[in-house]
């Protein structure tokens, strides 16, 4: 591989649009995935992420825009001539072939003789720790084993990019962590490129080198996990990626202060969304873990309820102006129901958005829903 080739993105989408009848599924997506990068696309059901994956794999073609794979324009290339493979949500293994037969399939249809397939199949099965099961029938495998066979099938001919379509969502919860680790190990070891789609924000934050948040067919933000989580560009991104309290506030005429819960709070100069916002009603997002309960602080509030989890507590408080917040305290706080406490937070913990900006369907995760419940289940159409 020459220097020039290695700097070509593995996947590049330019202005990709897709409509099904009246419905716009993808509304102008621009995207680049570098070689060896893990890009995770998250979004609620119907955000278009499955369609996007199918457009990269070639199962769907875009109505407008271009798909480039390793520097070649593949917009109208059929799926069987693209240098990418998909790991399907339901595995989509071939039931009439055994484990080795499934893994050998991409090599066999490419016309490789059996003698040369054999070592590659063994190698791929070794990557996923399935070499001892080469001759087993597919219907005799567990869900986790099927997933690993599907992964080996996708890796056997070393594609330019591996497309992972919610690869963990069909697995039992106790298998997910292990499979995620395996995916990470293989990626690092083999220098693989992943386009990973999921509706699970924890999975996304954990495995992604970069995360793209899709909503209604638009890419609302794309960047490293910390950046997307800490500096969300839209209220939707802020609520989709984690628990968050939404408070209504007013930006004062001077533009330097914020009025929430009956208090005036100075706006941090580095607060990303703040400079562009005109004075008037604003929406303030505050993550539960960014708020500290202490003897002094910005606003005073009364403890309404308290959930104890051993290493942490989740406390619901009520402040002046009918303002309710959920606060996570780690280590656990001693504040008891009925206590009056001070709440404090750093200025850059406040995420400011225009008052009329929609938070998106995931905003109900704001108040105390567990991460598992917060994820929006998506069925591939």
């Amino acid at each position, binding site marked *: 591989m020459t220097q020039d080739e290695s700097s070509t993105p593995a996947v590049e989408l330019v202005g990709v649009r897709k409509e099904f009848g009246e419905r716009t599924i993808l509304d102008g997506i621009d995207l680049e995935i570098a070689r060896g990068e893990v890009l995770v696309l998250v979004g609620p059901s119907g955000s278009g992420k499955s369609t996007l994956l199918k457009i990269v794999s070639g199962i769907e073609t875009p109505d407008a825009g271009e798909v480039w794979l390793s520097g070649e324009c593949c917009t109208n290339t059929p799926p069987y001539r693209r240098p990418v493979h998909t790991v*399907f949500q339901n595995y989509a*293994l071939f039931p009439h072939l055994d484990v080795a037969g499934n893994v050998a399939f991409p090599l*066999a249809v490419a016309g490789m003789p059996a003698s040369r397939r054999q070592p590659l199949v063994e190698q791929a099965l070794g990557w996923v720790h399935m070499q001892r099961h080469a001759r087993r029938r597919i219907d005799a495998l567990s869900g986790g084993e099927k997933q690993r066979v599907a992964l080996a099938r996708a890796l056997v001919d070393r594609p330019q990019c591996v497309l992972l379509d919610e690869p963990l969502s069909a697995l039992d919860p106790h298998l997910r962590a292990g499979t995620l680790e395996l995916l990470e190990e293989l990626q690092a070891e083999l220098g693989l490129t992943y386009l990973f789609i999921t509706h699970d924000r924890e999975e996304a934050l954990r495995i992604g080198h970069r995360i793209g948040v899709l909503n209604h067919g638009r890419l609302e933000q794309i960047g490293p996990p910390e950046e997307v989580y800490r500096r969300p560009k839209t209220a939707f991104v802020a609520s989709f990626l984690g628990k968050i309290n939404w408070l209504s506030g007013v930006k004062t005429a001077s533009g330097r202060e914020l009025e929430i819960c009956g208090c005036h709070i100075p706006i941090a100069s580095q607060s990303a969304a703040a400079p562009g916002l005109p004075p008037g009603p604003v929406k303030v997002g505050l993550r539960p873990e960014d708020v500290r309960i202490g003897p002094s602080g910005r606003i005073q509030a009364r403890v309404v309820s308290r959930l104890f989890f051993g290493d942490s507590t989740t406390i619901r408080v009520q402040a002046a102006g009918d303002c309710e917040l959920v606060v996570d305290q780690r280590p656990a706080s001693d504040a008891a129901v009925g206590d009056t406490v001070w709440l404090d937070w750093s200025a850059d913990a406040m995420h400011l958005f225009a008052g009329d900006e929609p938070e998106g369907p995931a905003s109900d995760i704001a108040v105390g829903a567990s991460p598992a419940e917060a994820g929006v289940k998506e069925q591939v159409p």
Partner: protein
Amino acid sequence: MQQTLEQISLRWLGRAALALVLAGMYLPVAMTVVYSFNESKIGTVWTGFSLDGYRNVFAQEGLLGALWASLAIGAIASSLSVLAGTLAALGLSAWRPRTRLLAQGVIALPLVTPDVIIALSLAMFFSALRLEQGFGTVIAAHCVFGISYAFVVMTGAVQDLDYTVYSAALDCGATPWQAYTRVIVPILAPSLVVAWLFVFALSFDDFLITFLTKGPGADTLPIKIYGQMRFGIKPETSALFVVLFLVTLGGALAASRLLKPAQAST
């Protein structure tokens, strides 16, 4: 535990009913087997044991030809039927439910149409077209019901098919042709074999539709046998029944063995 008289008599009643049903079903077959070893040349009078019936089974004039005709017509008609029925089942699976149900009903209609209606309408149809009646018309006629049966069997199989394997095959680099020949057809194979055997069996023993569409030359086995029976049932005819019965039994067993793994995997 003490059983009441009622329970015991009920049990025996059940056994008697079963025996009666089985006797009704298999006594004629058993009789045919017995009479196939008859020495007498005239049907139902037992005169002594002989293997002449079997020795002469294919020495009868025209019988071997009729057997070949039946096998060839059955093989061609069921192959065409399974091909058409499978393509129809695959194609219709992508239709919208309402139009699909309508189309499925139309294709399956010959299943519930009395044979005599199919036979008569085909006979009129062929003569209206001035087609020379013979093997061709018999095969076409057998396809009329054959496609229906094959379609119904294959529709069930196609409905059980997980279509993402087709996308997966393309994703793995298979061309659409390879995806069908290496994935879809192998997955459907057990059902294809069952459908083929099913249509073959129906074609092989069809009398009425064949009789009205065959024209002068194309005598199949059932028609030949019908012609012979005007002179009584000879041991040769019985012997032929036994041979056919055994062949059918073998086919049915093979089909049921093939169907089992297909059901287990769904």
